[in-house]
C-alpha cells in the first residue's frame, strides 16, 4: 500500500455541485489530546471540541447566537425571574438505547456542584438554590435572585447519563475514555496519542448527521499538520494568517482543493493597565496611550489584515456589541496634548517625557505568544513617538500568571480575553473581583460600571439587557482601562470535498451546521487513511 513513486496528482474537480448524501469520513487534527471526554472535569478546548459532538446540552446557540432548545423543547421563566422550568423533548434516548430524562439532567447538576467534583466551571451552577425533576420531561431550577447568565450556563452544561455514572468516581471513571452520549456521534475508538474515531449515533436525539465518521488525529506540530493537509491526509485545520493569506493562495494545487473560511473569533487582544500603579490611575494618561497606539498598524502588521478594530468587549455584529461606539483613532497630537495636560513634559530633551523629574517608563509584560510579542513591539515604537520609554518582557505562562498577574506586580500587560456568548462580564470588570487569582487583576474600580454589571445580571429580558450592556461598553470605552488592540479572525481551511458549509460565516461561525455538511461519494478519499489518488 505504500510506495507508488508518482507525485500526488489529483485531477478530481472539487467545484462541481452534488446532491446531499450521507456517508463518508471527515478527518481533522488537534494539537492536543483531550484528557478525558467529561467536559466539566476535563476543561480544555481539545476536550470541548470532541465531547461537543457526543453530548447534548439543554439549550444551544443558533446561527445568529440566539438561544434555542437542544434537549429542551421549551423553557419558562417565572414572573419573579428566579425559576426556570425546562420541558424536555419527548422520547429522548442515550446512544445505548436507554431513555434520557430530566433525572439525567438533575444528576448532571448534582455532579457538577458536588463539592468533591474537581470542576473549574462549577460556580454558575452553585448559584442554583433548588433543582428538581418533578416528572421525566420537566427540569426546573430556582435561583436566590434573578441570574441573567443562567440560560447561557445551561447552554454550556453537557448532560451525562445517570445510569452509567451513578456511584462512579467522576475523576477516575472509565466513562471519560469510553463515553455514552446522545448527540450526533458516538466514540468508536481512542488510540492514545494518535486519534479518536467517532461514528454516527443511531439514537441521536437531533436526528442523523450526514457525515458517517469523524476522525480527529492528534498532531501536535502545526507545520506537520499543514503538511498532512497538503498531502490530503486530513480535511481541515485552523490556519495562521501567513498560511491563510500567503502560502495557500500562492499554490494553485492547494487552491484547487482547499476552501478557506474566516470568521470572527470570540476573543480580542488588549493592552491592560495596572490601575493601582501611577500614572495609570490618571484617565488622561490612559487615553493618551490609547490615542498613541496605531491599532490598524497592529492588525496589518501582526495579523496581515485579518482582524478588526473593536470598541467594546463583544463580538461585532452580535446584539451585545454597541454599533454606535467607535475605537480611539490614532492621533499623536492628541496623545501629546493629553500627556502634557497630565503634567508630563520633556524637560531634559532626551526624548522621554518626565513628571516630577521621573521619566515616563514602564515594562509591558506578555506571555510567550508570537502575536502578542509582535504587537508589543509595535506599541513600543509608537509610544516612543510620544516620549514614553517602553520595555518588553515575554514570560512562560505558568510563571506569568503566578509571579506577575496574581501578585499584581506589573505595570502594563498585553493579553487576550476569550469571551463566552453571554454578555455578563462581572468577573472581569466588577470592583469586587480583584482578589489574587480573580480576573479583575487590573484593579478596575468604577461604581457606574459596577451598577451596570449588577443590573445586567438581574435582567432576563434580552432587549432591556442589551441596553444595559450597550451603556456598559460606552462607559468602559470612555474610561479606557484597557486599550482594545484587535479582534482576530479565526481562519480555517477545509477540503473542498466537504459540501454544505455556509459561507460567509454567520455570527455563530461555520461549525454551527456541521451536521448538515456532506461528502459526495465521488469525492471521498479511498479509506486507507493515506491518500491513494495517485495510484488510481
Amino acid at each position, binding site marked *: 500500500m505504500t510506495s507508488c513513486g508518482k507525485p500526488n496528482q489529483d485531477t478530481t474537480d472539487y467545484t462541481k455541485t452534488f446532491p446531499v448524501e450521507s456517508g463518508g469520513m471527515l478527518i481533522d487534527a488537534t494539537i492536543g489530546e483531550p484528557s478525558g471526554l467529561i467536559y466539566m472535569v476535563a476543561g480544555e478546548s481539545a476536550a470541548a471540541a470532541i465531547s461537543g459532538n457526543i453530548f447534548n446540552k439543554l439549550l444551544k446557540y443558533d446561527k445568529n447566537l440566539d438561544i434555542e432548545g437542544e434537549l429542551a423543547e421549551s423553557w419558562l421563566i417565572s414572573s419573579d425571574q428566579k425559576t426556570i422550568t425546562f420541558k424536555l423533548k419527548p422520547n429522548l434516548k442515550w446512544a445505548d438505547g436507554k431513555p434520557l430524562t430530566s433525572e439525567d439532567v438533575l444528576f448532571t447538576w448534582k455532579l457538577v456542584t458536588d463539592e468533591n467534583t474537581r470542576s473549574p466551571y462549577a*460556580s454558575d451552577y452553585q448559584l442554583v438554590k433548588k433543582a428538581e425533576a418533578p416528572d421525566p420531561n420537566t427540569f426546573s431550577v430556582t435561583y436566590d435572585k434573578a441570574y441573567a447568565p443562567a440560560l447561557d450556563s445551561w447552554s454550556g452544561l453537557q448532560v451525562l447519563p445517570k445510569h452509567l455514572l451513578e456511584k462512579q468516581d467522576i475523576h477516575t471513571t472509565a466513562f471519560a475514555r469510553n463515553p455514552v452520549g446522545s448527540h450526533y456521534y458516538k466514540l468508536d475508538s481512542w488510540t492514545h496519542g494518535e486519534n479518536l474515531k467517532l461514528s454516527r449515533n443511531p439514537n441521536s436525539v437531533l436526528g442523523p448527521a450526514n457525515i458517517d465518521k469523524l476522525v480527529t488525529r492528534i498532531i501536535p506540530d502545526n507545520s506537520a499538520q499543514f503538511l498532512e493537509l497538503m498531502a490530503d491526509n486530513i480535511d481541515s485545520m485552523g490556519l495562521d494568517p501567513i498560511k491563510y493569506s500567503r502560502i495557500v493562495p500562492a499554490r494553485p494545487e492547494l487552491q484547487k482543493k482547499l476552501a478557506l473560511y474566516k470568521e470572527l473569533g470570540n476573543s480580542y487582544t488588549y493592552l491592560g493597565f495596572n490601575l493601582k500603579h501611577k500614572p495609570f490611575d490618571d484617565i488622561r494618561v490612559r487615553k493618551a496611550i490609547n490615542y498613541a497606539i496605531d491599532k490598524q498598524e497592529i492588525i496589518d502588521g501582526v495579523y496581515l489584515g485579518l482582524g478588526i478594530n473593536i470598541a467594546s468587549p463583544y463580538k461585532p455584529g452580535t446584539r451585545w456589541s454597541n454599533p454606535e461606539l467607535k475605537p480611539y483613532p490614532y492621533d499623536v497630537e492628541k496623545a501629546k496634548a493629553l500627556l502634557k495636560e497630565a503634567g508630563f513634559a520633556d524637560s531634559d530633551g532626551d526624548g522621554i517625557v518626565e513628571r516630577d523629574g521621573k521619566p515616563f517608563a514602564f515594562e509591558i509584560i506578555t506571555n510567550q505568544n508570537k502575536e502578542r510579542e509582535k504587537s508589543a513591539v509595535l506599541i513600543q515604537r509608537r509610544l516612543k513617538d510620544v516620549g514614553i520609554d517602553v520595555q518588553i518582557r515575554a514570560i512562560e505562562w505558568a510563571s506569568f500568571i503566578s509571579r506577575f498577574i496574581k501578585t499584581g506586580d506589573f505595570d502594563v500587560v498585553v493579553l487576550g480575553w476569550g469571551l463566552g456568548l453571554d454578555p455578563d462580564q462581572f468577573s472581569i470588570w466588577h470592583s469586587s473581583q480583584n482578589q489574587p487569582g480573580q480576573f479583575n487583576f487590573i484593579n478596575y474600580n468604577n461604581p457606574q460600571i459596577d451598577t451596570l454589571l449588577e443590573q445586567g445580571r438581574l435582567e432576563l429580558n434580552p432587549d432591556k439587557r442589551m441596553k444595559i450592556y450597550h451603556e456598559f461598553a460606552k462607559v468602559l470605552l470612555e474610561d479606557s482601562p484597557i486599550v482594545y488592540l484587535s479582534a482576530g479572525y479565526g481562519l480555517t481551511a477545509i477540503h473542498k470535498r466537504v459540501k454544505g458549509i455556509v459561507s460567509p460565516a454567520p455570527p455563530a461561525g461555520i461549525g454551527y451546521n456541521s451536521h448538515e455538511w456532506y461528502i459526495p461519494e465521488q469525492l471521498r478519499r479511498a479509506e486507507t487513511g493515506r491518500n491513494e489518488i495517485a495510484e488510481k
Partner: protein
Amino acid sequence: MLKYLVKRVLWMIPLLIGISLISFFIMHLAPGDITNNEAAFNPKASEESRQKLRELYNLDKPVIVQYGLWLKRMGTLDFGNSFASHQKPVFWQTTDKDGNVTKGMIQEALPITLMINILGLIITLSLAIPLGIIAARKYTLWQDKSITLFNFIGFSIPGFWLSLLLMYWLGVMNNWLPISGLHSINYESLDTWAKIKDSISHLILPVIIPSVTGLAGITLFVKNGMLDVFHQDYITTARAKGLSEHKVVYTHALRNALLPLITIVGLSIPGLIGGSVIAETIFAIPGMGKLFFDSVLMRDFPVIMGILTIGSALTLIGNLLADLAYAWADPRVRRGVVRN
C-alpha cells in the same frame, strides 16, 4: 563479584531518594501550579473553584509535607494519578471494580520511545563503527575527509528542519512515506503483513533522522579509539608477527578500540528513556519527551516526578549494567573489581 553487585544495588536506594528530593524541590521552585493552567483565564472558572482544586491536590500544603506524602505513596510503589490527564495513573495501569483497565501514562509512552531510540542506536552504531574504522585506516586520505565532512554536515543540520524537508519531499511531493503518526487511520482493518509494513513505514523517518544527525560523535569516537590503538606496541608486535592486516585490525585493534563504546552506550541510556521533545512533536509520536514537556508546562507534578524517578532508576540500572559489561569485556577491570 556478587557482593559488589548487592552493594551497588543497595546504594541506589539512598541515591534515588536524594534525586527525588532534589527534583521535588526544584519542581516546586518554578512558579505556578496546575490550577494556573487548567482554565486559568476562563472567566467561567472562579478562584474559589481553583482554590478547591488546590486543596484536593494538597497543593496548599508546605512543599516538605507534599514531598512526605509523595514519598509515603512511593513506599508502596504508587506513583499516583496525573492532575492534568483526567486522573490517569502515572506509571502502570489500574483496573477499577468493573474490570475497566486504565493504562498508565509512562506505560504507554515508554515502549514507544524505547523502541524508536533503540532502533536509532542500533542504526547509529552499525553505521558509525564501519565508518570510524574506515576513517582510521584511511586517516588523512580522501575517504577519511569525506566521512568527516558527511558527519559534520549531519551534525550541523537541525533535526527539525531536515525532518520537515524530508516530510515534504517524501510525504507531500511523493507519496512514498507517511508524514506523521505511528499508524495509518485504517490500521486495525489491515492484515498482519500490511500492519507490519504500515508500522515500518511510519518509523523510517523518526528513526533515521536522529541516527544520521547523531552519527558524528560516535564515528569520531571509534576513529580516535582505532588511531590510539594503532600506535600501541602490541599492534606493532602483531604486525611484526606477520599477521594479516585484516586480522590485526579486526581481531586485535577493534576489540580494544570498542571498549570505550560501552561507556558511551551506558551514558546514552538516559537519552534512550527521555526521548526528544522536538522529534516527537514534529512526528506526532506520543513518547516520553512529549509527555515530560507537556507535564512541565501544565505543572502536572505527579507525572513530572514519576518520569524523573523512573528515568533516574533506569539510568542508575543502565550505569550498573554498563559497568558490569565493561568488567565482562575487559579482564583488567574485572581484576580491579575483585580487589575492591
